[in-house]
């Protein structure tokens, strides 16, 4: 009950420690998937909390607090991406800073997870965003459409092409993707 009440009220500066404990790691993981760099993700999440407290009066309680925070985070990710594009050409950035999978010990090493995370970073920002929102954040199509400002059809289309892209980028031996997506079949 208390959690639900906090989720619908605007955050205050005094609540920063609670907010960080409650949502910090979750936002960080999402930011990492969206931008592909742990350092950038840390900075973006920090800026997210700062922006959230600064513009707390804008939170109207129409969505849960995490969704609102995640919206701020996505806007910051977009801005960060635009800034990076201005600094260097995409090709140069890929050559200089290739996506580095996070180090993991031998026992926990998950080949599929690493391959998929690498493949995700090779998708376009729009496709990567819908994959993260749909499969990582577990959001329904309707909410993804609202958050990204596009129609439900566009979200489904992006999901289809994103999954197709991942299927091509992930090694065939994993063989967990299908050649035909549901949306493509449905539109035929």
């Amino acid at each position, binding site marked *: 009950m208390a959690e639900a009440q906090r989720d619908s009220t605007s955050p205050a*500066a005094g609540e*920063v*420690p609670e907010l*960080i404990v409650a949502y*910090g*790691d979750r936002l*960080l*993981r999402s930011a*990492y*998937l969206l931008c592909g760099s*742990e350092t950038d*993700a*840390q900075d973006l*999440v*920090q800026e997210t*909390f*700062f922006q959230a*407290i*600064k513009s707390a009066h804008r939170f109207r309680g129409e969505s849960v607090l995490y969704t609102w925070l995640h919206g701020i985070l996505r806007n910051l990710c977009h801005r960060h991406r635009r800034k990076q594009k201005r600094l260097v050409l995409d090709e140069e950035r890929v050559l200089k800073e290739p996506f580095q*999978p*996070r180090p*993991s010990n031998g026992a926990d090493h*998950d080949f*599929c*997870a*690493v391959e*998929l*995370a690498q493949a*995700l970073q090779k998708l376009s920002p729009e496709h990567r965003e819908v*994959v*993260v929102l*749909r*499969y*990582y954040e*577990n959001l*329904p*199509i*309707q909410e993804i459409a609202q958050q990204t400002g596009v129609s439900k059809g566009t979200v*489904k289309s992006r*999901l289809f092409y994103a*999954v197709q892209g*991942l299927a091509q980028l992930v090694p065939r031996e994993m063989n*967990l*993707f*299908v050649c035909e997506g*549901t*949306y493509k*079949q*449905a*539109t*035929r």
Partner: protein
Amino acid sequence: MKCHEVQAQLYEYLDGALDSYVQASVREHLRQCNACQSALEREKTVSQFIRHSLHRETAGLSLRSGTLRNVLQQLDPKPIAPNVLIVAWRWLFSSPIHVAGMGAAVLGALFLFFSVQPHRQPSENSSSSAIAEMLQNTRVIDVPIQTETHVFHRENDTVMDAITPRVALGHARFPEPEHPTKSL
């Protein structure tokens, strides 16, 4: 309900976002249609695979310890001390009396400066003329054997050390004026 209609709404069906009537129709179609059933299963498999992989990849990430401190610092920055020059400039032009006072002070300073300058000139001249007069009777003689430079002073026909004038080095004649420097 036809297959393409069902498969176009599979995402919403999985979300439970369809009207109850449509939801029931899709469920009924899925029971009878293997193709649509397998499309649904594929979507579930892909969804599970991606979700599991991404959660696994990011499981070890945690927010750095300094985040809270940095956010609080950003929210409550230290007040910036106003620039002294800006404050002085604003104070100066806040009243015509200040401007007049400042003008008078500048004029006074200029008057003092130019009135002191002529008094300094003779003292400089006297010291420089004394040096010039002293140099007329002074020769610098290079001693290459000792690789030292001595400064000698002439008093009549006696050669004196210029640094310690009491020491008389002997009698000698100075060279002609056109060859002021010569080894002894």
